């Protein structure tokens, strides 16, 4: 059963590993929990999910797998680890009861009967409440498995809140696949910062060491200096004047919020697509143009290029000379984008359009190809992946 559960998490796109799965098995075997599904929910989550951004996904996967199941027993088939059951029984039975079990044929007999009961129960599906036996009638009931046990009796379920933890979806806001908003902008910032700060190694300060050793009458005195941080230089190209303004603006804010973390961060604006001129100041768009060539010459190939735009337009705007909607462009958009990506080998495109819509827009497909697939949605996750691609 555990394997199935594990695989279904994988199918839901959770990054679970075998190591963590074994950890869960070990915890079950060592009796960390005793059969309530709620406990199993928490235990499996602490073992398998290491990022609260994935909690919501886990909740959905869990709900799908355990739909309508109220007791672990119902999904545990005959191959429950024997050890686990033994521990369980040992814990829950008094000395007296244990003696009774012995009389019934000992532990093995108990286990066998329990397994059998589980099997039968699986076939029967007693109207939604999938419990094993009923207190008082089955030998298990008679031995009084108490409610905090595997809950073979019904007691445990009655006063439970109707809504399961995993159905409450309390971690929805932590999911990193939703669009950038006020709530998750902090997370996005952290990912950017992580990208901006590359290592903080210490290195030997040769000059300093020689100087201080000399001052020290020849006795060695090592001097260390922190390696330079903030090595990252970024060119940010933002598409403005369209339906995506809000998003683009948010992205701009995001970058300016961590401006100090970068060694250099330069902004430029364009409309729909990049041609021979771009702007530095959004408001002076018509008066203050910069030649794209000059920008290419000024900022060397140690810069990383981040283009933000919806890439949604008529294909002509990319393919044709004169395709621009605003002016006559002698050279096609393709040529300009190629010039950029040829120089800046580290380049990504961030697209605020929901990723699900991408395949339906021809121009997005074209840009994506031109960018060699390095187009990322404007979500925390997308940003994170984009930053990885920039390394």
């Amino acid at each position: 059963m555990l394997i199935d559960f594990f695989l279904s998490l994988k199918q839901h796109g959770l990054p679970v590993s075998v190591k963590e799965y074994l950890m869960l098995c070990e915890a079950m075997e060592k009796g960390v929990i005793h059969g309530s599904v709620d406990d199993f929910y928490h235990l499996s989550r602490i073992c398998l999910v290491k990022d609260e951004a994935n909690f919501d996904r886990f909740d959905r996967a869990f709900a799908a797998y355990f739909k309508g199941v109220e007791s672990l027993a119902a999904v545990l088939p005959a191959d429950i680890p024997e050890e686990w059951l033994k521990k369980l029984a040992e814990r829950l039975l008094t000395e007296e009861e244990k003696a009774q079990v012995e009389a019934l044929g000992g532990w093995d007999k108990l286990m066998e009967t329990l397994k059998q009961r589980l099997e039968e129960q699986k076939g029967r599906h007693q109207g939604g409440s999938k419990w094993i036996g009923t207190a008082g009638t089955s030998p298990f009931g008679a031995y009084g498995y108490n409610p905090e046990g595997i809950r073979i009796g019904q007691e445990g379920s009655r006063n439970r809140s109707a809504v399961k933890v995993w159905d409450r979806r309390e971690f929805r806001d932590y999911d990193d696949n939703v669009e950038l908003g006020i709530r998750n902008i902090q997370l996005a910032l952290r990912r950017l910062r992580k990208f901006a700060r590359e290592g903080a190694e210490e290195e030997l300060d040769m000059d300093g060491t020689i100087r201080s050793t000399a001052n020290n009458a020849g006795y060695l005195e090592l001097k260390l200096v922190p390696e330079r941080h903030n090595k990252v230089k970024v060119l940010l190209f933002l598409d403005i004047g369209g339906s995506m303004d809000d998003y683009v603006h948010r992205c701009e804010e995001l970058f300016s919020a961590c401006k100090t973390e970068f060694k250099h961060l330069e902004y430029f604006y364009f409309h729909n697509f990049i041609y021979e001129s771009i702007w530095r100041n959004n408001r002076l768009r018509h008066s203050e143009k910069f030649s794209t060539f000059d920008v290419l010459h000024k900022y060397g190939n140690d810069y990383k290029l981040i283009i933000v735009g919806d890439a949604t337009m008529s294909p002509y705007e990319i393919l044709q000379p004169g395709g621009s909607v605003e002016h006559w462009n002698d050279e096609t958009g393709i040529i300009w984008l190629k010039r950029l990506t040829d120089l800046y080998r580290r380049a990504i495109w961030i697209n605020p359009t929901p990723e699900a819509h991408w395949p339906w827009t021809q121009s997005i497909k074209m840009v994506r190809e031109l960018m060699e697939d390095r187009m990322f949605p404007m979500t925390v996750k997308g940003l994170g992946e984009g930053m990885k691609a920039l390394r």
Partner: protein
Amino acid sequence: MKFTGSQNYIATDDLKLAVNAAVTLQRPLLIKGEPGTGKTMLAEEVAAALGKPLLQWHIKSTTKAQQGLYEYDAVSRLRDSQLGEEKVKDIKNYISKGTMWRAFEADEQVVLLIDEIDKADIEFPNDLLRELDRMEFYCYETRETVVAKHRPIIFITSNNEKELPDAFLRRCFFHYIRFPDRNTMQQIVDVHFPGLKKALLKEAMEVFFDIREMPGLKKKPSTSELLDWIKLLVAEDIPPEALKSGDTNKLIPPMYGALLKNEQDVHLFEKLVFLAKRNR
């Protein structure tokens, strides 16, 4: 040996489960959550509840993994050798043991807190993989392998400033402390102020959660701010009525400076209150 919360610390069921899993399986437990949700305190309370010594390793941006194991002071030794000191012959004199070493060599099981691991360099957690897994490491200088006599119970906290590497995460249990709901918060306050008047508590909680829900705050007040604030209210003998927002003149709760510490937040708050007053 089971952790069931303590007199000073309110632990939710899922948190207790996480602690017990970590204790039973002797694997580290990684704790994340908003500031002030009791991450650091947890390790202290578990140590106290289980009657075990607590060793703490507070991580800073400059902390290196090696420092938790040991440090070899080559420079002093070099200097001593130039001065012809006797102790220079034994390298052990220049090895100073780190927190992990002390946890490993302890004669009884200890609780080890690695606090704010996200402050360090991103490589830091990766440098501790083997140590956390096998609970042993090799000291090159003295040519000995230090093996934990008793696997310590390890708590690691993070404020999410950096992401932690996957290989590291796979070795830990992970629990996220959610911000306490009203009920839990009430219990936490009870623990700190056992004799607090019901009416005052009710009004204070009302104000606190209202402020937390105010959009646009840079830093939402946390548990510790609530506790500080209540302490002030009690010290100044503020009556519960003074916290009721129904009273137009007292829209601003007394001593709210304890709740809002960021200047921008205070301004925002005052502005909103001002607007609310005017619209009455």
